[in-house]
Every structure is written in C-alpha cells, then in structure tokens.
C-alpha cells in the first residue's frame, strides 16, 4: 500500500514535469529552438493565477481565474516571441539558448518583485479534498493533474499530426526556407506556438501550485523537465510525458529505498545514461535522410 501511494504521488509529480516538458517540446518541434525558460514560464503562470485567485490579491472566482491566467500566459508567450525572439530569427541556436536562460533570470526577478519570494500556494476550491479507493488516499488535485496532463498530451498529439496548423508547424521546423516557399507564414507560426506553450506552462503552473507552495525559484524545476524531455526523445510529445513520469517515479522511490542523496542525482544520471546509450531518447525522432 505504501509503495502504491508512493507511486501515485510520484505519478502526479511526473505529470507536472511532463507538462513543462510538453511546453518546450512544442516549441522545439515547431521552431527548433529550446526554451530554457519554460520552467520560469510555468512559475509565472502559477503566480498569475495566484494573483487572480488568492484573497490577498484580486480574489476572483477560481473558475474565472484559470481561463484568464491561461489566456494571459498565452499572450505573454506570443508577445515574448513577437517582441524578442523574432529579432533573433536566423541566428544560431546557441544564442537562443543563452537568451532564454537570461530571460529566465529576468522572469524570476519580476515574479519575486511582484509576488514576493515567500512560498505561496494557490487557494483552490478542491484543496484538501480526497478520493478514497480501496485503502488508497488520493488528493483531488493529484487526480486532476493526471487527467489534465493525459488529455493535453493527447490533444497536442492529434493537433500536430492531424490539423493543418500542426502540420505547418512541423514543416516550419524541418526546413524553414522550404516552408516559406510553400507559403507558410513561418514567423506567425512561431509566435503561435510560443503562445501555445505559454498556455501549457500556465496549466502546469496552476496544477503545480494547487499541489503545494510555489516561489520564484520553483522555475528551476524546468531543468528536471528538460531531463524528462531528453529521456523521452526531444521532439516527441508522448515521449515528454513518459520521461516526466519516469523522473517523477524515480525520485520518490530513490529517496525511499536508495542511499541518501541519490534522489537528487537520479534524474540526471538517467538523463546522462540515456544520452550515452540511446542518444535520441526513448521515442527517438532522429532519422537518416535517404538520398
């Protein structure tokens, strides 16, 4: 029972990692850029929702605050690409990596200045409610996390493989110039996908903040999500979720059954092992070009 409980809470954690990973896999899949600030986007999304919901701030109704903060974060993502990243168009990936790292610092500073550096948690209507099933005690928020994550992953998977915009995004990623020739508005597509990933980040942040307290440095969680995305295979949406769950599960198990200190190391150790033995990740997206 104890073991199962551990697994379930790990699963909920893993889904949050998976959601953050989903955010930058989205960006990577469509723009070939890696957003090292995705964790900070998540943190900002959580704080925006806290700002709308909590009694100390605006005290709006939770059901109103959630879509509002998702919209705000979507706009933020769109504006971020439109205002900053679009000017980097055509520059090397390394500079984009460095730029997003720097943006992470700035976002952390802004969030800390507006909402303080104290850990704050989101006041949700279902806080403290539990579901009991055969001796297992599950928080409603944990169940919500798993359900929402699975639904979002499926949605985006279908979006990318079936919808017109999704296909355009894939094309824009595979060869920008060719996509231009085909009449795809690459820059607008890029902004769109950044907006989308901002929305995903908001969802991840809201779920995370409903589970426990959050402070500006929570954004560093994004690094674990990176490991998740790379384990799953960068550029694969189900892979991001799977990687997130693997990390989420390994952490509590390692800290419970492994020697001290192993639980912090485990996610990155798995990442390094995967990179060494299966460089493309579990769902490898790399393929040889046939000439």
């Amino acid at each position, binding site marked *: 029972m104890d073991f199962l409980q551990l697994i379930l809470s790990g699963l909920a954690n893993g889904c949050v990692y998976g959601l953050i990973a989903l955010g930058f896999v989205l960006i990577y899949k469509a723009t070939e850029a890696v957003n090292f600030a995705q964790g900070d986007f998540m943190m900002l999304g959580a704080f925006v929702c806290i700002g709308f919901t909590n009694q100390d701030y605006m005290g709006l109704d939770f059901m109103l605050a959630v879509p509002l903060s998702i919209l705000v974060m979507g706009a933020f993502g769109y504006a971020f690409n439109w205002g900053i990243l679009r000017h980097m168009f055509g520059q090397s*990936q390394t500079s984009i990596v460095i730029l997003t790292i720097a943006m992470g*610092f700035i976002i952390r500073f802004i969030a800390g200045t507006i909402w303080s550096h104290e850990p704050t948690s989101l006041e949700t209507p279902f806080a403290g409610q539990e579901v009991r099933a055969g001796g297992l005690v599950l928080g409603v928020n944990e169940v919500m996390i798993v359900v929402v994550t699975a639904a979002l992953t499926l949605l985006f998977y279908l979006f990318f493989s079936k919808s017109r915009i999704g296909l355009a995004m894939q094309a824009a990623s595979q060869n920008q110039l060719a996509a231009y020739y085909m009449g795809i508005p690459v820059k607008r597509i890029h902004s769109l996908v950044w907006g989308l990933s901002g929305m995903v980040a908001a969802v991840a942040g809201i779920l995370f903040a409903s589970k426990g307290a959050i402070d500006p440095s929570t954004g560093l969680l994004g690094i674990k999500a990176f490991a998740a995305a790379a384990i799953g295979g*960068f550029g694969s949406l189900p892979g991001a979720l799977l990687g997130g769950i693997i990390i989420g599960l390994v952490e509590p198990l390692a800290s419970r059954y492994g020697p001290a200190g192993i639980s912090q190391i485990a996610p990155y150790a798995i990442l390094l092992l995967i990179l060494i033995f299966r460089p493309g990740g579990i769902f490898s997206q790399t393929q040889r070009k046939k000439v």
Partner: protein
Amino acid sequence: MRFVFKTSYDADIRLFKHRAQAVWYFLLLLLVLATPLYFVAIGDAYLLGEITGVLILAIAGMGLMLLTGHTGLPSLGHATFMALGCYLNINLLGAGIPWIIAFPLSGLIAGLLGTIIALPVLRLHGVYLALATLAMSILTSDFVVMAEPWTGGIAGAAVPDINIFGMEVNRYSTPYKFYYLVLFVAILLVWFYRNLLRTPTGRSFTAIRDSEISARAMGINLTRTKATSFFLSATAAGLAGALFGHSAGYVTNETFDLVMSITLLLMIVIGGLGFIHGAFFGAIVVGIIPVAIANGRSFLASTFDININIPGLESALFALILVGFILFEPMGLYGRWLKIRTYFELFPFYRKDMFKRQKSYLKTDRVQ
C-alpha cells in the same frame, strides 16, 4: 588608412598583422606588468586582488571561448571542470607534490576527465551537449558532497599556499606575487591559444563551427577534433579552477555551482563570441557589475535617500545586459570595438552593413 600588402602565404597567419599592432600589444603588456606599481604607490592592494580575480575568470573564459566561440559547442557546465581542477590541485598539493608540477597536472587531469565525460555526448548535436553539460553542472555539488574524503564535502576544504622553489605565494600576504603568477599563466595561455588558432587543428575548430558538413567534406574527423577542443577547453578551465581555489582560499560544494557555469557562458557572449579578447572583456564586465551595483546603491542611498534592496536585482540586471547584447550587438563588446575601429580606419567610407552576416535558415537536426 593602412594597407597591408600580403606578399606571402605566411602573412595570413602572422601573429601580428602589422608592426603597429605589435607595438600596441607590447604597450598593453607593459601596462599590465606595471599595474602593481600603482597599488604599491597607494599602499592598498585590495583592488589588485579584484583584478587578479578578473584575470582568473578570463582564463576560464578562454577555455570556454575555445569550445563555444571557436568550435561552436555550447557548454553549460564549465564550472564542473573548474571544480575538478581545484580539488585535484588541493589533493595533489596535499600529497606533497610541488605546486609547479601539481598545478599543470591538475589542469591536464581535469581535461582528460572532462573529455571522457563528454566523449559520448560529443557525437550529438549542440542542444544535447548543452543539456548533458547542464546535468553535469547540477550534479557537481552532489558529487563534491559524496566525495567527502577528497573534497571536505559541505564543510569545505582549505586551499594550501603556493610554494615555488621556496617562494611562498598567497593571495592576502603576497598579493603582488599572486598577481604576477596569474598574469604569467594568463599570458602563457593567450600565447598558446593564439598559436593554436594558426595551426591546422585550430583552423579545423573554426571549420566545424562554421559548417559541420563542409568540415567533414574537407576530411576533418569531427568527433576527434571536437574531443580535442573539449580537452583543451576543460584543461584551461581546470587551471582556472585551481587558481580560483588559491584566490578564494577556501572552497565548498557551493563554490562551483550552476550560476558560475552560466556566468562563464554569459561572460564570453558579452565579451564577443569567437575572439580571445572577448574572454577578457567579458571577465572585466563580470568583475565590474557587482561593484558598480554596490556603488550605485550606496550613491542613491546617500544622495537621494532611496534605498533599493530588491533581492535578485544583480542577476536580473546582468541578464538584462545580456539580452541587450544578444539582440543589439551579437558580436559582443569586442565586435563593437572592431566596428568603431573600422569606422575610423575607413572614414568616411564605413557602411552600416559591413559586419552584417547572412541569415541562415534553420533546418531540423532530427533528419540527418
């Protein structure tokens, strides 16, 4: 305007393009050699210690510059190699090996270990290398704690003094000797770096940076060349780490953290990617910013009675400067200097687009 007539192929790879350049660098050398005289005159060596710190950062920056600026491989984990160099140096000195052997040895071992760690990842594309080095950087602190017998763990380890043939060098008691020692290492490395860039190895680094496909077509063994670059880069970082240890006097598991790795990367971008000068300019900026912020704070507090005490302001300001550079001056401080110099050299024929690079359209790495 100066015309350099190249009459032989050697002229392309000469250390100095023309005599005036050599004279300027000689004057610079005299200046850095004479700097301590000023501090002797005012009798306060505090600032000299800061300058020494900047030089150490510049050495680490040169290491990263070789990898990121000249080979085009981003690393977010160079503090790890600094940690390796630092702890190796402490342990070798502790084992009774004289500094003159222990110091270069710790750099070399750090380089070798770094190459072994990085070898599997070097086959992958840049983003993965960034990820793997990021993971490495995060793990460093945990490994330092785990290797307690050698590193002192959380309690930290004291760094022994330098002893060169009976001459004691310590940052606090003999700041001038320490300055000259660091300066010597820095100049030696610059000389090596400058010469390396003239050799076939150095040129293949730049070839890889500019186009991996063309480099491979020219017969360059990608993995081996990247590994060489990584080795040299990690060695320089290891040497810088050892010196950093001597400068700090005491190191713990939090000395070489992720922030340091990122600072190194930001440093070379601000300085100018792909120029040795960039490492030095970047190190100067990184050294000046905290001092400038502290001075600005006390100025505001004393003159206008405004007390700014926002946590995280320093790193945010740093990040803001960096974003500004990437957006408006991707070539960094040195690039800006080059532009200004060209403007005056060609006056009045300088055009705005002279340094404009052709845009490259991204293609996926997933289809090779």
